[in-house]
């Protein structure tokens, strides 16, 4: 069972000083270890009770999402639905309903699986990750742009004792369309073999703005920068082809228990092509 403590500050202090103590939110990553693994696991500190990690709110030019927000809550929130349909789409495809009721955005990001479904979405929405830690008797915040958060396979910019408080998502400009596609092993309760998110806009039949990111094709979720620049300025059909093949060139997926490198690479290209092609040719 997870332990609790009175304040977030105390929690950060304990996490920084007690070896073997780990934060837990929904527990959907931590609690599914087999009894054999569990027998050897350390202790958990429950953060889900702290107000600092909760809530969804529009603040100036961005929307704040607390780390403890569940995927069910994301799907239900009016402001998320209005501004971030790709995040809603991702949230609705994580696990199944039971998982969505417990699993949190913060846990998904901190877990840092290259297959995490919300991760490419946060990348194309250019989120800022807000971190917190204890400095003496104060809780200090640090803001890390999403592009700099994942530093290696399951490695993040989190310092020891630092926790994710939440995310700031800049409001998308007018006409920015969002897309999300997950390729899993089955209809639900499936970890992605390839997952792609897109934010983009066309004008006069040509791609004007494009941000693409993918998961499960590299050690971390990746922005597909070459695909983006290959497509911008081109007429939609040509842009889709260019983005698809550039995406394949800039990634080197691997064979693993869920899929093959060859499949992932080809399907990444096809899904990128499909998503770009689905943009409205003229969003004015």
């Amino acid at each position: 069972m997870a332990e609790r403590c009175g304040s977030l500050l105390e929690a950060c202090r304990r996490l920084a000083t007690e070896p073997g103590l780990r934060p837990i939110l929904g527990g959907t990553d931590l609690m599914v270890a087999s009894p054999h693994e569990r027998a050897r696991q350390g202790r958990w500190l429950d953060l889900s009770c702290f107000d600092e990690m909760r809530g969804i709110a529009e603040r100036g030019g961005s929307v704040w999402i607390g780390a403890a927000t569940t995927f069910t809550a994301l799907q239900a929130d009016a402001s998320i639905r209005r501004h971030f349909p790709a995040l809603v789409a991702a949230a609705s495809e994580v696990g199944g309903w039971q998982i969505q009721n417990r699993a949190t955005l913060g846990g998904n990001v901190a877990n840092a699986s290259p297959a995490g479904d919300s991760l490419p979405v946060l990348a194309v929405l250019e989120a800022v990750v807000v971190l917190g830690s204890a400095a003496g008797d104060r809780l200090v915040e640090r803001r890390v742009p999403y592009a700099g958060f994942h530093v290696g396979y399951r490695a993040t910019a989190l310092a020891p004792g630092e926790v994710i408080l939440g995310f700031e998502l800049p409001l998308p400009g007018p006409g920015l369309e969002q897309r999300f596609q997950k390729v899993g092993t089955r209809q639900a309760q499936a970890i992605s073999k390839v997952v792609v998110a897109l934010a983009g806009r066309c004008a006069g039949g040509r791609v004007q703005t494009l941000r693409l990111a993918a998961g499960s094709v590299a050690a971390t979720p990746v922005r597909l920068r070459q695909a983006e620049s290959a497509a911008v300025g081109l007429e939609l059909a040509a842009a889709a082809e260019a983005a698809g093949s550039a995406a394949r060139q800039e990634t080197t997926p691997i064979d693993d228990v869920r899929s093959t490198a060859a499949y992932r690479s080809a399907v990444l290209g096809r899904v990128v092509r499909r998503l770009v092609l689905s943009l409205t040719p003229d969003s004015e």
Partner: protein
Amino acid sequence: MYRWGGCSKLAELTYIGTSPPRPDGPAKASGLSQYADDVAVAGLWFGETVRSPVAHGRLRSVGWRRAAPPGAVLVTAADLPGPNGVQLIDDGWPILAEGTVEHVGQAVALVAAPSRRAAVLAAAEVEVDIEELPPVFDLSEARRQPSLYELELGLGDPEAVLDQAETVVEGEYRTGHQEHIYIECQGMTARWHPSGPRVEVSGSMQCPYYVHKSMVHAFGLPEEAVRVRADAIGGGFGGKEDYPSLIAIHAALLARAVERPVRIVYDRQQDIIGTTKRHPATMRYRSAVDAEGRLLALDVLVELDGGAFTTLSKVVLSRALLHAAGPYRCPEVRVRGRVLRTHTAPNGAFRGFGAPQVAFGIERHMDAIGRRLGIDPLTLRQRNALVPGDRLPTGQIVDESTSALACLESVARRTDFVTRWTEYQAAQTETNGTPQRGLGLSLYFHGAGFTGNGERRMNSPASARLTPEGRIAVLSAMTDMGQGAVIVFRQIAGEAAGVTFDDLEFPEPDTNEVPNSGPTVASRTTMIVGQLVARAVREVSAQVADWWGEQQPAASPYTVKDGRVVGQDGRSTPFAAVARSYLEVHDALEVTVRHQPAPGPVFDETTYQGPAYPTYAWGADIAEVEVDPDTLAVRPLRMAVAAEVGRAIHPRLCIGQIEGGTLQAVGWGLLEEIKLDQGRYLNDRLATYIIPTAMDAPDLDVELLEAAFPDGPFGAKGIGELPMDGGAPAVVAAIENATGLVVDEIPATPERLFAAQMRERSDD
């Protein structure tokens, strides 16, 4: 959705053909049922298994790494009181590794401790020292070693016909491992008693008497010294036919060593690593056909991967060979097969028992013939399907209930098959990014009951006796693992005896209480043991009625109906009251009946000629799938299934079996795959061993057809395994119809379809 086609509730029957609720339903739905891990036992300790980390090696030593953890006890092969083999068909499966290890996950030692956590931690303190030896995984390498078993059967001289034939079609088809994924993992509790039966085991099992036999063998005890009881069972699918014997011996070894009750319950990872699976198969088919696609000759070679030890492979192979030519007429047939040995976990019983593998082989092969000759799948099958009076490769003449054509008609009618199949085929090349659709057909049959002379040899008994309350207790060793024997046996007994469910009692399967009516396997429970139950209770009820007639001669003879003993004058008395009066003047009334094989020819186990099964159940599937042209993800949209079941005792449960089995077959065909690297499991958990969820299930439109089997209870045939045979070939054929991609190996994962697509493009 389902329809109930050819069957109807016969007017004169009360329970047969109705779907009453199962008595254990509320407890199961509310979570009150006591499964192996739920039963409270005072002073219980927990056992853990130490497994081989390598596929093949010389076992140098096993022991505590450091000092023994306080309280923990270690058991190795050196502690065995008797022979080191699990008694199944033979006893080649070691209880604990000795001398060598033969697969990753083989049990090497056992540990018991006072808590589960302590047992897990103690097991990690056991050091296993193994000198690795070169393992064999590949069938081409396994072929160079002696086979575990070889068999051959046939009719005529196919070679001569194949040599002369104008059209010869050849193909190789492959199917993979399948893990049972019963909801409840394997679990067993054992304890030793100072008096009475010396050792008692209870837990999750299909066959209490198999466990009993292997316990007697392993501990060298007299039969009456061993008591085996089945708890509520959370699914089996064959996986609890062979393996419970091993885990029961393990639990009993630990209980003996610590002199306390000990429970071993696997978690899912242990269960996937340790237990038996469906045999992977490689099948080579060669056929000669005429211009209309009629089979002239067929030559089949079936190779099963047996894994490291034999378990039940011999009978799996024989069932595979007996079904390898499919439900088709062919004058010249040769079927050969062997079980090869590899350094992987032993493969064993799994719903269908070798038949689903060859059903995939023959059905893909029929599609290959159709493809070659340009004949649609339905017409080709209609031309070749067996009809009453045709001969199987064993020489058996199939009976009047042979329903292949009726099954085809049922599914084709409901799907408008040929028209839509032809349209989809024409649309294969229109790849505009929208999903492609396809239809696929399979036809199959399944021999009901034990193969060959199994039933004749076992000569199983079942009993019925009056209880002091005036009820009829029905005694059989059959277990209910979810399939519904609990209610189906009540219906059969109530109907046969003319009594109500309240007049019946069904003691739990316990080797101290019930006779050895054989294992709950091979689709034999309803058809074979159900018939024994019907005969036994009918006899008890008739004796009671006759005795009552002697007491009241005026209205004699008496009959038993709806729980009352009814005289010619129409006056009646409750059966229970009459039965109690009977027991006032008699000590007891107990009737035991044994299986009586039908008269006629007997199967010859050396030539493999004769009736291998008393009858066959028949089925046809049409699957409709949608394939994403980019990701090649396959979505089975809907399936029409026709199943000819003899008689549906409980139509709702019967359809449940068909639906569940079909989905299990679709999972095997599309998703389920054990991935091994040097014999190590890459996907030993449910996050990575992917089975279909409700969202992956097609809409199933099942039609039951009935053609009574005279030797089954009220005409019923065994149907538990039938639906496992048709799903995989139907969905794979539908993928071909949608995309043009020919896949002869399952699971047909998107990765495999992608590889086929790449091969095809490089061929262009």
